[in-house]
């Protein structure tokens, strides 16, 4: 699904990624580890197609509609409600039965009661859960998750654990994290960035 050779990314004079090689096959679960500033986020952005590598070869054999990306920011509109946000993304991703699916995901992540509340009123943990709903809404086959546990409370962590355990077998994952121990059991490969 992803093939990267010698990928380099530079922003102005700063070189963030250098000589990265990566191969991700279908249903793999890859953990990307490394300290802050090592380029985990940048690598995921490149794989998502939000940025182009400065040098090197990067092929992501997945169409945009089958790709799910969880970023640092939740990527939701603060002034829209949870349901409205998911409705918008549902339309853009051509999700069939989007209303039902949105409802189902909100429920799975414990946000059903807050569905008509504006995202601006959400706590950090709730925003992260909403972001996860957004990411999973269209049943992507490739999931790029950047620090998926950040901001989650205990309950959120459990919900996410459950989701990942269920989906690990039927989707491909590339997860950037600085706490790899948690996902070790699910992982099929690791990439450590300097």
């Amino acid at each position: 699904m992803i093939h990267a050779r010698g990928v380099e990314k530079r922003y102005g004079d700063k070189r963030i990624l250098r000589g990265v090689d990566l191969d991700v096959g279908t249903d793999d679960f890859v953990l990307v580890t490394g300290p802050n500033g090592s380029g985990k986020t940048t690598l995921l952005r490149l794989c998502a197609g939000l940025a182009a590598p400065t040098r090197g070869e990067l092929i992501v054999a997945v169409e945009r509609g089958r790709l799910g990306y969880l970023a640092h920011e939740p990527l939701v509109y603060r002034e829209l409600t949870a349901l409205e946000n998911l409705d918008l993304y549902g339309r853009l991703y051509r999700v069939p039965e989007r209303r039902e699916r949105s409802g189902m995901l909100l429920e799975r992540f414990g946000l059903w009661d807050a569905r008509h509340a504006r995202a601006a009123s959400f706590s950090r943990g709730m925003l992260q859960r909403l972001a996860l709903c957004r990411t999973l809404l269209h049943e992507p086959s490739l999931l790029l998750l950047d620090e998926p546990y950040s901001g989650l409370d205990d309950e959120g962590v459990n919900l996410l654990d459950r989701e990942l355990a269920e989906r690990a077998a039927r989707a491909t994952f590339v997860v950037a994290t600085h706490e790899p121990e948690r996902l070790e059991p699910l992982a099929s490969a690791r990439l450590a960035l300097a």
Partner: protein
Amino acid sequence: MAAAIALIFFYAPLDQDGLNQKIFYFHVPIALTAYASFGWGGWKALRHLWKRDENADLESYVAIHLGVIFGLLTLVTGSIWAKYRWGHWWVWSEDQLVLFLVLFLFYCAYFMLRYSLPPGPQRANMSAVYALFGVVLIPVSILAIRLSERFIHPVAFDRGGPNMAGSQFLTFCVCVVAWFAVAATLYQLELAGKRLDIRLRELREALQE
């Protein structure tokens, strides 16, 4: 380059008319060169977006840089011409001047755009799109400015350009070619210089590894 300069000095003695005319031999070829530079910049911008040509961004930038310099020269020579012809340093009735003022502002904004973004594919893309807008703006502005004449100024000035006899026309063509040659040379020079800068920077970084 030497050939271009030789040409410029060669044709000067051919002029017979007053200073007014002499300026004209500078002004119009320089204007045409500016148009050509902007056009070339636009073409390279298109190649950058369309064919992902790696060199095209830099080439487009250099071409537009030159275009702005020549545009400034056009405004200056045009202003001098206006002073001699009509006694004012600026006349709104002269379409060419007004057009170049607009284009000058437009392409200066190009540099503002470029300098406010960090170097990278995003800056290259946006510069290219903006450069293409410039190309579309040129004919639209020509039409617009011509139309604006009618309600801004009653046309009081005699606007006939100089008519050209045979020898003058030849001189004029030689001038055009000469200025194009100067521009092309400057273009190659600046491009080479910038490429050298980039190469130096790359080497310096490779050494730091």
